[in-house]
């Protein structure tokens, strides 16, 4: 009977491969694909970390900067559009709450992506945040690409290929956050 390459054999009961140089050498094609997905995840994490740092710098948590920003945006977009309605009726009246959700949400996505922790949930959270950015009048074409990238991290087990999800799932197999 043909045995799979030694590097493919799970050592922790997890059927998904762990991304290592040995795995990459034994499975160049698949390994390259996994490596690129992981690189994309790290870049995505850095991207959101930059966003979160910017929110802390602008004092989104305790200051009025979000209110100034959202009010200015309201003057820039078509007053009859849905984003204008969403901004004026929901985002601006709740700008403190929105500031907290955006700041901590971006930081959570960054930590999740960089550490491979609750990676699928972090991907979902990223999609939730970005859809709301678009609805709130901050749509541009980069959001389409970023949402597609985030979807990769929801669908694929990148946190098991490399990340804390793998060991946490081994310890807590019933917890859905680490799947």
């Amino acid at each position, binding site marked *: 009977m043909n045995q799979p390459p030694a590097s493919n054999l799970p050592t922790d009961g997890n059927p998904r491969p762990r991304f290592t140089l040995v795995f990459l050498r034994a499975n160049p094609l698949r390994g390259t694909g996994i490596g690129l997905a992981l690189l994309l995840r790290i870049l995505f994490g*850095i*991207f959101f970390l930059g966003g979160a*740092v910017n929110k802390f*710098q602008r004092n989104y948590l305790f200051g009025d900067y979000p209110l100034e920003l959202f009010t200015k945006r309201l*003057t820039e977009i078509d007053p009859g559009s849905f984003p204008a309605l969403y901004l004026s009726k929901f985002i601006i009246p709740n700008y403190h709450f929105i500031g907290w959700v955006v700041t901590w949400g971006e930081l959570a996505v960054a930590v999740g992506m960089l550490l491979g922790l609750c990676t699928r949930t972090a991907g979902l959270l990223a999609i939730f945040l970005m859809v709301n950015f678009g609805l709130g009048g901050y749509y*541009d074409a*980069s959001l389409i*690409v970023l949402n597609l990238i985030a979807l990769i991290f929801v669908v694929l087990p990148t946190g098991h290929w490399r990340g804390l999800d793998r060991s946490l799932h081994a310890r807590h197999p019933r917890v859905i956050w680490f799947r």
Partner: protein
Amino acid sequence: MTVGNATMRIRGAALLLAAVLSVALARPADAAPAINVSEICTTCKDVIRCVRDPGSLVPPDYPVVVYYLHEHTFWEQVATIWDYLVRFGKAKEQDTRALTIYEFKVADEPPARVLDQQQAELDAVGMTIAVPGGQIDRHSGAWSIGSPSLQQGGSCQLMPPADGFAFLRANAPDS
């Protein structure tokens, strides 16, 4: 390792961390320029109206000029992801925007000349907008024109969004 060494290392690491945090969390300086256009907005359509001074040394062929700074194209918007990653932690200082120039012999009449497919260069350091044959000071709105050397030619204002959109509806229906 002695206790003294460990204490010194912890103290050094704490100082380093404090220095990094003080830089990372420092609030950027606020500025409120007269021509408040953004280097980072990819979907903004900015309309700037410039009027020549009556005593301008430059011959006033077109006393009123309107500059329409277009929004970025689809792929330019997508490319901002990479741009953002590259300048991680640093503010964007330059931007290039597609530009249409509307030149008026008489204000409130249809434009005498329309120059399409031009470019405007936004500079956040010098706080200028370079346009063909001129430059706009974003702080004061001063408009310098002429070639080869620039001379004070008039002043510019960023049109309020409602007026800007109305101008574009009348003069650039496809925008």
